[in-house]
C-alpha cells in the first residue's frame, strides 16, 4: 500500500490529499491544469520539503514522511524514478550515459534485461551516442522516460509521460509500463489529463480538483460513474474487451467475439484468439429500441439502461449495462422522451466498425 496523508501549502495553493493506493499497480492522476497533479507527484518524490505540514507518507510500510516525528526521507533514498514535464536530460551526457546515469550511483540498479526491454520498447537504441540537443522533442521524452524507469526499483512517478511521444511509439511505450508492473513489480503513478491514456493504463485512478481528491477508486468504477467528473465529458470513451475470431481479407475487417456477441473492427489483421481492447467514443454510439438489421452500423449489442444524468441543457449521459460491463453514451432529451426510455429498459447499442479503435495485446479488464 502507498498511504498518503498530505497537506502542503505552496504559495496560494493548498494541496490536501488523503489516499490509500494499492502498490504494484498503475495509478492515474487525472485533473485539469492547475489541479495539483504535478505538485502531488513532487511531494511523493520528496521535493518542496519546507511546504509540507501534518503529512504522512508510507510506501509498503516504509515511512517516507512523518512530519509529527520530523521524519523526512530525502529523494535520493526513496528508490523512485521521476519524470518531470521538462525532461531535464543532462546536456553533457549522451543518450546512453543519460539512461544509465542512476546505475552509476547505485550498481544494484544495473539490470541488463530491463535495460534492453526499455531501449527496445522506446526505440532509442539508435540514439545512444547522441547528445540531448541533437534529439527531437519526442525523442527527448522517450529518453527521459527510459532514464526514469531505469532509476527506480519500486515507484515510478511520471508527469505527463506521453505528451510529446508520437503515435508510432505511443502503443509500445504504454505497453512497456504494463510490463513493468506485471513482470517487474513496479508501482507506477501517471499524471495525465488525457483520458485515453488513463483508459489504457490505469488500474486505479485519483481525480484531483483544486488540490483535493474528488474521486478515487478502480478505473472501471470511476470511468462509468456518470455523476463523476471523469466520466462527464463530451470526450468520454468506452472500452470493451473482445477476442479476434477471423480476419476477412475481402473487407479488411476483423471479426471479433465478445461472449455470444459478434463485433466488427477495422485496422490491420490480427491473429485469431488475440485478446484486444476496443475503444468506442461515447458519442459514436446510437441507441435503437428494436434490433435493426437494415443499417450500415455493423455492431449492435443488447444493453439495458442502468442510469442517466443530465450533462448539458439538451444532453443526457446514459449508463448502459452490457453483460457484466458498462457502456456510456449521450442522447438528447428529445430522443429520450420520444422513445419513452426508462431505467431497466432493454435496447440495442449500435456503432460503426470504422469508429472502433482496437488496442492490441492489452490485459486490461480481460
Amino acid at each position, binding site marked *: 500500500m502507498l498511504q498518503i496523508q498530505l497537506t502542503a501549502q505552496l504559495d496560494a495553493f493548498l494541496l490536501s490529499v488523503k489516499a490509500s493506493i494499492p502498490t504494484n499497480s498503475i495509478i492515474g492522476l487525472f485533473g485539469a491544469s492547475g489541479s495539483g497533479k504535478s505538485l502531488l507527484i513532487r511531494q511523493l*518524490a520528496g*521535493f518542496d520539503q*519546507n511546504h509540507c505540514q501534518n503529512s504522512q507518507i508510507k510506501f509498503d510500510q516504509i515511512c517516507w514522511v512523518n512530519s509529527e516525528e520530523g521524519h523526512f526521507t*530525502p*529523494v*535520493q533514498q526513496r528508490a*523512485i*524514478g*521521476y519524470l*518531470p514535464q*521538462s525532461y*531535464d536530460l*543532462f*546536456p*553533457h*551526457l549522451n543518450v546512453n550515459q543519460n539512461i544509465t*546515469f*542512476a546505475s*552509476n*550511483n*547505485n550498481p544494484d*540498479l544495473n539490470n541488463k534485461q530491463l535495460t534492453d526491454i526499455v531501449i527496445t520498447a522506446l526505440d532509442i537504441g539508435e540514439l545512444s551516442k547522441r*547528445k*540531448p*540537443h541533437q534529439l527531437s522533442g519526442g525523442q527527448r521524452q522517450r529518453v527521459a522516460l527510459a*532514464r*526514469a524507469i531505469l*532509476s527506480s526499483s519500486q515507484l515510478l512517478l511520471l508527469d505527463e509521460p506521453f505528451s510529446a511521444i508520437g503515435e508510432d511509439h505511443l502503443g509500445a511505450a504504454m505497453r512497456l509500463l504494463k510490463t513493468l508492473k506485471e513482470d517487474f513489480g513496479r508501482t507506477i503513478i501517471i499524471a495525465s489529463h488525457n483520458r485515453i491514456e488513463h483508459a489504457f493504463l490505469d488500474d486505479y485512478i485519483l481525480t484531483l480538483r483544486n488540490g483535493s481528491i474528488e474521486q478515487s477508486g478502480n478505473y472501471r468504477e470511476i470511468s462509468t460513474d456518470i455523476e463523476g467528473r471523469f466520466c462527464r465529458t463530451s470526450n468520454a470513451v468506452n472500452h470493451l474487451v473482445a477476442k479476434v475470431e477471423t480476419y476477412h481479407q475481402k473487407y479488411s475487417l476483423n471479426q471479433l467475439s465478445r461472449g455470444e456477441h459478434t463485433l466488427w473492427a477495422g485496422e490491420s489483421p490480427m491473429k485469431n484468439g488475440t485478446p484486444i481492447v476496443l475503444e468506442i467514443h461515447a458519442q459514436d454510439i446510437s441507441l435503437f429500441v428494436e434490433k435493426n438489421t437494415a443499417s450500415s452500423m455493423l455492431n449492435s449489442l443488447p444493453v439495458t439502461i442502468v442510469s442517466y444524468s443530465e450533462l448539458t441543457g439538451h444532453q443526457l449521459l446514459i449508463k448502459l449495462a452490457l453483460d457484466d460491463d458498462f457502456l456510456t453514451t449521450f442522447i438528447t432529451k428529445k430522443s429520450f422522451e420520444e422513445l419513452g426510455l426508462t431505467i431497466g429498459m432493454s435496447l440495442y447499442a449500435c456503432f460503426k466498425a470504422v469508429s472502433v479503435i482496437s488496442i492490441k495485446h492489452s490485459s486490461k479488464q480481460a
Partner: protein
Amino acid sequence: MSDYSAILVTLKLAITASFILLLLGLPLAWWLSRPAVSPVKSFFQPIVEAIVALPLVLPPTVLGFYLLIAFSPDSWLGQSWLSVTGTTLAFSFSGLVIGSLIYSLPFVIQPLQATFAAIPESTIEVAKSLGCNKVQLFKRVILPISKTGIISAFSLGFAHTLGEFGVVLMIGGNIENETRVVSIAIYDHVETLQFAQAHQLSLILILFSLALLTILYRFKNNRVGFY
C-alpha cells in the same frame, strides 16, 4: 633581466590568485546562484553580491589603501600573519596574492554565478531522484555542465590579475623577484624614459592577453549548454 623576473612574478601571481579564487569562488558562486528559500538567505544574498561587485567600481587605490592598513603589523590581520609566518604582509608576494584575490573576485564569481544560475532547479531535482548525494551531484552533474563557465571564470581571473596595477602599487611596491610585476615594470620604464623596454613589455602583455581572450571566446562559442 629584471623584465624577465617581472614576467615570472606576474605569471606566478596570476596563477596562484586565480586558483585560490576558483576554489573559494565555486562554493560562494553556487550559494549565490541558487534562489533563496530562507529569509536569512534572501537578506544576506544581495549584500554579499554587492560586496563581491565592489572591486568593479572602486578605484584600486581605495582597495590598496585599506589593504595596506590591514597588512600593517598594528592590525589584527598583519599581526596574526606575522606571528604565524614570521613575515609582514605588506610589500610581500603573499600580500600581493591577497590583494589580487579581492581585486579579481568579481571576475571569477560573476561568470561562475551566471553558469550555475543557468542550471534549472529541475535538473538538480532529477539528479537527486537518480540517486545523487551532494558530492555526486557536483561531480557528475554541476561541474561537468559548468565546465565552460569554470574555465572562463579562471581565465578572466587570470587575465584580470595580469593587468593589475593600482593595488600592487599601494601594497606591493617594487621589489624585484617578489612584488615587481609587469605593469609596475612598465610604469618604471616610462618614468625613467626607457621607452623601448616599456614597448617591449607592453607588447608582450597585449599579445598574451589577446591570445588568452581569443582562446577563451572560441571556447565559449563552442559550448554545449542547455538546448
